[in-house]
């Protein structure tokens, strides 16, 4: 499978990239939250932890591979982002019935409305890459939360770097 080959090929370069890149949050952000008014989060007690659940997605790809990060005011998908998205693409190729959502986010240092548009642009950048490696667009929903849902609470560069993100979640 093409995506698998690319993923392996890029995996070696990832560590070096992480050290000097725009991102490199030292502690990993918690798992993406789901919209409170949509489907409830699958829980451990529920029997549904198989393919098509957020839990299964997380366990299979690893939490670090569910989120890509962006530079200040940027939305380009760089080499490290591509590696992460290819890992996701492998999963979604393996489970072709799973639909999913990409949540776009911005840091707090932007105006509210612009950040909503920026989050949408970031989510679409991730979506477009996944489509380019073979995931059908009709399986991917995007949503922007702008600066409304930070995962890092501080007001500093490190926190902002963690909040400029596109997080992939499986909502069934």
């Amino acid at each position, binding site marked *: 499978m093409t995506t698998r080959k690319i993923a392996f090929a890029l995996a070696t370069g990832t560590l070096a990239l992480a050290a000097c890149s725009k991102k490199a949050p030292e502690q990993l952000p918690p798992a993406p939250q789901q919209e409170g*008014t949509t489907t409830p989060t699958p829980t451990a007690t529920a029997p549904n932890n198989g393919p098509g659940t957020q839990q299964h997605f997380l366990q299979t790809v690893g939490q670090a591979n569910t989120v890509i990060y962006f530079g200040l005011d940027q939305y380009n998908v760089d080499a490290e982002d591509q590696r992460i998205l290819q890992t996701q693409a492998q999963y979604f190729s393996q489970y072709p019935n799973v639909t999913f959502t990409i949540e776009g986010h911005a840091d707090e*240092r932007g105006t*509210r409305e*612009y950040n909503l548009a920026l989050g949408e642009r970031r989510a679409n950048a991730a979506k477009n890459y996944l489509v380019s490696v073979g995931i059908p667009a009709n399986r991917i929903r995007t*949503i922007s939360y702008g600066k409304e849902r930070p*995962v890092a*609470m501080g*007001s500093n560069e490190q926190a902002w770097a963690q909040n400029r993100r596109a997080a992939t979640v499986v909502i069934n």
Partner: protein
Amino acid sequence: MRTRPVRTRPVRIRSMRTSDMKTTIIAFAALLAAPAMAQTAPQNSSRDLGAPIPEGGEVETVEESQGLTGSVSFEGNLDDLGIAIPAFATDRDGPTPANSQGTAALGTELARVITSDLRNNGLFKPTGPDSLPRPTYPEITAPNFATWSNRGAEMLVQGYVRARGDGRLTIGCYLYDMQLRSELVREGWVVPPADWRRAAHKCADLVYSRLTGESPFFDSRIAYIAETGPKDNRTKRLAIMDSDGANHRFITTGQSTALTPRYSPDYRKLTYLSYVDGNPRIYVYDIGTGTQTLITQSANPTFAPRWSPDGRWILYSMAVGGNTDIYRVSANGGGRSEKLTDAPGIDIGGSYSPDGSRIVFESDRSGVQQCYVMNADGSNQRRISFGSARCATPEWSPRGDQIAFTNTSNFNVSVMSPGGGNVRQLTSGWQDEAPTWSPNGRIVQFFRTERNTGSTSLWQVDLTGENLRELPTPVDASDPAWGPILP
């Protein structure tokens, strides 16, 4: 059962002579209390809505001055202008739904509201009813100047409140120049008891306008977003209040995130962004019926709603494939949307010039956020902001002479001329954004975010950069939108 007054056309009686102490009221369609219309079954999009709130009644002007005649004796700085505002008198202390202790107590409250308006505005030195003697009812139109002259006040505001047979209130307001010992202006209003504060705001507006030459602004309302909870799980509710923070009401319950409200020019509707269906979408909420509708049927996210000054159009921004552009749609719904911008990048927001002919908006087509002006049909787009400032959330002043914006280079609120010149920074918080204008274009309101905590609050500042103050709100507050003078 909740009731609300039936809407009637406003009745205004113009051109009465100042000297005519007329109280004749033109036959007025009775403000019958009618049961609220049965609500339709709750729809998906309305599940975040609270119970409908009562609409305001009409305020009827029953006497009015003949414009600005005569001079004002005071020639110093208005900051130093002493204004005595004793309790409003009543002809007969009687019961009123506006105050459990009757019309005399209401007279004191009226003077307190006027005093608070004028003091918070920062332009005058008012003295309120709690430290002044109480004039009698006949003294309202014939002040005992000797009583007031040794209190150091240059101006005197007196008034009265009378309970009418139909349950409404007649409230009169008089401004006297102490040195000239003459009346400068007077006006009277008939208000439903629930709207008694509007008469006080109208009196404050009358005094403010007569002494400064500026247009009124106190009798107006503000829509905003009330915020509670921790930074990573904020509850954001649509809320409204009077310009002084009174009559505060929540519109949404907080189950879904609500953002960026705007009052319609007639105050009957609010447009805002809600995540109620799981996606960011723009709705129009009808205050009278308590129901809301989507402004456009689309699978794409919509942001940043704005009314045209005549209320006929709504601007909104929509992202298609990550590219955001500005659209225009009829406010009545059902019409086709017209795309006004098509540059690659984020074109968003928009604010009409007061005459509705032009729109100032924000775009990052140059690489960073800057402000542009276009004709109302989208033609003739040109950048107006240059230099070091990054320009976001531009808002055209109701007077037309200024555009307020967020400078996202250092997150302050600034103003500039409509051509982009004469940039002046008005604020310097850690993060100030989203300016909105007072109805008279003399005050800029905005919200301030605190570093680290993410705590938010509403602030306002004069166009001069002076008189910065925080507006009291029950909880944290953001996205203020100041409406025009109430109809």
